[in-house]
């Protein structure tokens, strides 16, 4: 099936970058061998893996031996949290994190708590920005093993004060883990962290490739049964062709990142202002300026999120939602909940390099009627 229509869910998975497609096909030809063996085919695979690592490390500004590929952004997040805590278990067993981390981080936190550790969640304001004073107090408390802050919210786009958070961590002697899945390939990530993770399908690489960086001097202990691969950080064999493609895509998007951010930022600003002006009773959420270039979220009063997704899909718009019942859960998004903003009727629009101005304008032209129809069906027109 060929997918037509406007795809606005890059924050879940960006379409495969053409450079990634080429690299993937080429690597399927000569990158299928196990890079850990000692024959010609394996050496070729090893070269490809080393080159992919060197490119990715260079773009992230780290040493190649600090970077491991993983099977997903989720796996990288789990390894960062559980490995970072295991490495510091003598220093402290409390895991400090923002209230708006990705579920991968929160699920790792739950595992840590179930195993006898503790977790402390730091609130955000109504715009989705970390409370810096609460953060500084939380990381300075006794017994903190690790702190985690998402680089920018995957649900509402608000960029987080990573540099300030890192300073507070440094002052307290606590390592900082940054989940940079929504930033890598789009915007620079501030320094000062000890652990970082990212996910290739967010930047135009294939799904099923994550990145875990453990800076030199960071105490990290594998949460998995022993395995030598990827510096002992990723169990099991990598999908090497996908890794090669991920690195190729990252190089390509990084070269265009500044121009692309400017282009998408203008479209996102148009969505923010037009939706607020043309759809009654809508709450456009997230920080108005300090935000990711490609992602915008709003909530429509009296509208069921699931019905809205289906109505938009019928008109050829693929978006996601933080409303309850739109994912596998009956709870609304913990991010919208932490911000205290309307959670029903929520739509997240996230753009990518193939997004055109015409697609965005068609969406903006059709949205008011879609919302009005759903409100009329629910008997909520004119409330």
């Amino acid at each position: 099936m060929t997918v037509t229509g406007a795809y606005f869910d890059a924050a879940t998975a960006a379409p495969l970058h053409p450079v990634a497609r080429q690299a993937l096909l080429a690597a399927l030809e000569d990158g299928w061998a196990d890079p850990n063996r000692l024959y010609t085919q394996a050496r070729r695979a090893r070269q490809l893996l080393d080159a992919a690592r060197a490119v990715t490390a260079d773009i992230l500004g780290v040493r190649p031996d600090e970077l491991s590929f993983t099977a997903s952004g989720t796996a990288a997040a789990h390894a960062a949290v559980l490995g970072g805590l295991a490495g510091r278990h003598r220093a402290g067993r409390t895991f400090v994190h923002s209230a708006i981390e990705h579920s991968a981080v929160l699920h790792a936190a739950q595992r840590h708590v179930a195993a006898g550790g503790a977790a402390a969640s730091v609130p955000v304001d109504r715009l989705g920005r970390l409370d810096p004073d609460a953060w500084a107090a939380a990381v300075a408390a006794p017994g903190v093993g690790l702190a985690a802050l998402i680089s920018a919210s995957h649900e509402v786009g608000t960029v987080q004060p990573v540099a300030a958070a890192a300073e507070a961590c440094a002052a307290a002697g606590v390592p900082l883990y940054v989940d940079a899945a929504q930033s890598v390939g789009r915007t620079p990530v501030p320094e000062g962290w000890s652990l970082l993770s990212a996910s290739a399908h967010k930047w135009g690489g294939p799904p099923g490739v994550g990145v875990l960086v453990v800076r030199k001097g960071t105490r990290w202990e594998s949460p998995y049964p022993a395995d030598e691969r990827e510096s002992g950080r990723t169990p099991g064999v990598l999908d090497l062709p996908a890794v090669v493609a991920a690195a190729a895509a990252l190089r390509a998007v990084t070269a265009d990142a500044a121009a692309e951010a400017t282009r998408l930022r203008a479209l996102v600003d148009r969505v923010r202002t037009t939706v607020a002006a043309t759809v009654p009773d809508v709450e456009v959420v997230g920080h108005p300026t300090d935000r990711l270039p490609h992602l915008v979220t709003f909530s429509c009063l009296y509208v069921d999120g699931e019905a809205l997704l289906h109505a938009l899909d019928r008109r050829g718009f693929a978006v996601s939602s933080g409303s309850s019942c739109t994912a596998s859960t009956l709870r609304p998004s913990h991010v919208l909940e932490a911000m205290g903003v309307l959670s029903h009727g929520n739509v997240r629009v996230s753009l990518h390099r193939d997004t055109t101005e015409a697609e965005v304008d068609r969406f903006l032209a059709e949205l008011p009627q879609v919302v009005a129809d759903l409100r009329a069906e629910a008997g909520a027109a004119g409330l």
Partner: protein
Amino acid sequence: MTGPTEVLDCLGQRCPLPVIALARRLPELPVGAVLRVLADDPAAAVDIPAWCRMRGQEFVGRVSPTSYDVRRER
């Protein structure tokens, strides 16, 4: 403190239905009246206060895990 003027039973309803019911009923009560909304959808905990903020009505508080008091301000 006096109790609510009226109770609106939205138990078993999924959001946004409790919010729609609230929006329909509150303007029919006199200014100053308190409407207690019973709702067990977890989203109500976020959406009822958010509705009050957007509509300029007073969210008095969550009085039990499944009941929320709202005062008509205007």
